């Protein structure tokens, strides 16, 4: 009898008295990040929120290619330094560059963090500093886009061999979000939800023995959702062409540039990737966005735990078979 009563007490304690939500809004990496932790341990949750704030802050400075920060060797510094000069950088930045660079070969060159020169040309047009559309010639002569011009020499030391400009915009947010999620799991705060910008969400365990429900915005009618993904311990990342673009002569030019053509790619309106790793999700959503639907399906077919949804140009929707696990 005593044991039974003890058990009932425990159940009440677990279900009734715990799991407040602790939340923090952050502005980093040109976007808005919301972290929610569900926990009964207020101090631990608040400490974790501060720690994650610091994490995004540090990586934001390291990955920054527009601003210098005192005493920080960041992407801007690397982009502006002389070639053939060895430099030791922060281990965290080195690892992020190494991780990103490794996907260049794995994606047949589609995932390339050395596109900065070309991206800058497009930015001039998108911001309205220049009118129209850049010519292929203008894009070609903007500078090197070869990732091989960056040597990783080990021991956190790098060297540039050409005038490349690194841009971690396609990876930094997801990379840090993944680290933040892993940090929370590591200290036992398994119930969390991190919204990193509008295009990426990472969730842990659910706060109520349920599944997180994540809506996907309809690219053709952005006030509506076209699908809901349900799951725990997943990240959901979308690459879409309908949010950041400019229009010229009736044609829309968006921000995801194909490294082979230097022009925005138009295979799909949006591609959403579901995987347990937010950094991988970021890499794959960009990569799949640059492939045709068939190529993309084939590309991820042998990857375990990776599912995808393509919202095609004509409004058609293609799912991988495993998506049924998240219905």
């Amino acid at each position, binding site marked *: *009898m005593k044991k039974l009563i003890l058990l009932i007490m425990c159940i009440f304690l677990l279900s009734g008295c715990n799991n407040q939500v602790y939340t923090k809004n952050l*502005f980093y990496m040109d976007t808005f990040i*919301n972290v929610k932790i569900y926990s009964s341990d207020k101090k631990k949750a608040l400490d974790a929120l501060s720690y994650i704030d610091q994490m995004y802050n540090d990586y934001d400075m390291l990955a920054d290619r527009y601003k210098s920060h005192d005493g920080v060797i960041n992407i801007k510094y690397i982009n502006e330094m002389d070639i053939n000069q060895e430099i030791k950088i922060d281990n965290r930045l080195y690892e992020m560059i190494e991780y990103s660079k490794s996907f260049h070969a794995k994606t047949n060159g589609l995932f390339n963090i050395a596109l900065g020169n070309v991206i800058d040309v497009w930015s001039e047009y998108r911001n309205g500093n220049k009118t129209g559309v850049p010519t292929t010639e203008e894009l070609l002569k903007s500078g090197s886009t070869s990732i091989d011009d960056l040597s990783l020499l080990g021991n956190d030391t790098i060297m540039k061999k050409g005038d490349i400009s690194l841009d971690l915009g396609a990876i930094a947010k997801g990379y840090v979000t993944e680290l933040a999620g892993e940090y929370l799991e590591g200290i036992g705060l398994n119930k969390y939800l991190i*919204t990193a910008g509008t295009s990426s969400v990472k969730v842990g365990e659910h706060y109520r023995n349920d599944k997180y*429900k994540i809506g996907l915005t309809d690219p053709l009618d952005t006030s509506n959702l076209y699908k809901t993904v349900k799951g725990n311990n997943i990240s959901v990342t979308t690459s879409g062409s309908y949010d950041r673009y400019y229009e010229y002569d009736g044609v829309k030019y968006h921000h995801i540039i194909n490294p082979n053509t230097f022009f925005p790619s138009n295979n799909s309106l949006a591609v*959403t990737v579901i995987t347990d790793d937010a950094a991988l999700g970021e890499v794959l959503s960009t990569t799949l966005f640059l492939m045709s639907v068939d190529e993309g399906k084939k590309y991820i077919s042998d990857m375990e735990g990776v599912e995808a949804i393509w919202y095609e140009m004509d409004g058609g929707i293609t799912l991988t078979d495993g998506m049924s696990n998240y219905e």
Partner: protein
Amino acid sequence: MNRYDFILISVILFVCLLFLGITYINGEKDANVAYVYYDNKLVKTIDLRIDETKEYIVKGYNGDVVIETKKNQIRVKEEKSPLNLCSKQGFISSSLETIVCLPNKVVIKIESSNDELDAVVR
């Protein structure tokens, strides 16, 4: 089981129910409230249940941000920013939509008690 066990259990049950009650009441009270943040600090809480058009002004990084509300809806009416993405976004009415004015570091979120989704990705 003696008398003290009984008292202990009663007290714990009571505390549990109290907490449940507080959570429930909090949830009800926060229904359809808009929270306005500037640089990660809550600067305004607006009750959206009132059925009239109202204007509010909050400080933004580039100057004043004018916010307009209607019943269960909120939008940024005017802001100083290069692309004016915030005011172009128009009214939002669900807690899953967020207005983010990056240049002004202003965020507007709605909390309502009847949302089924945890997040939205676009």
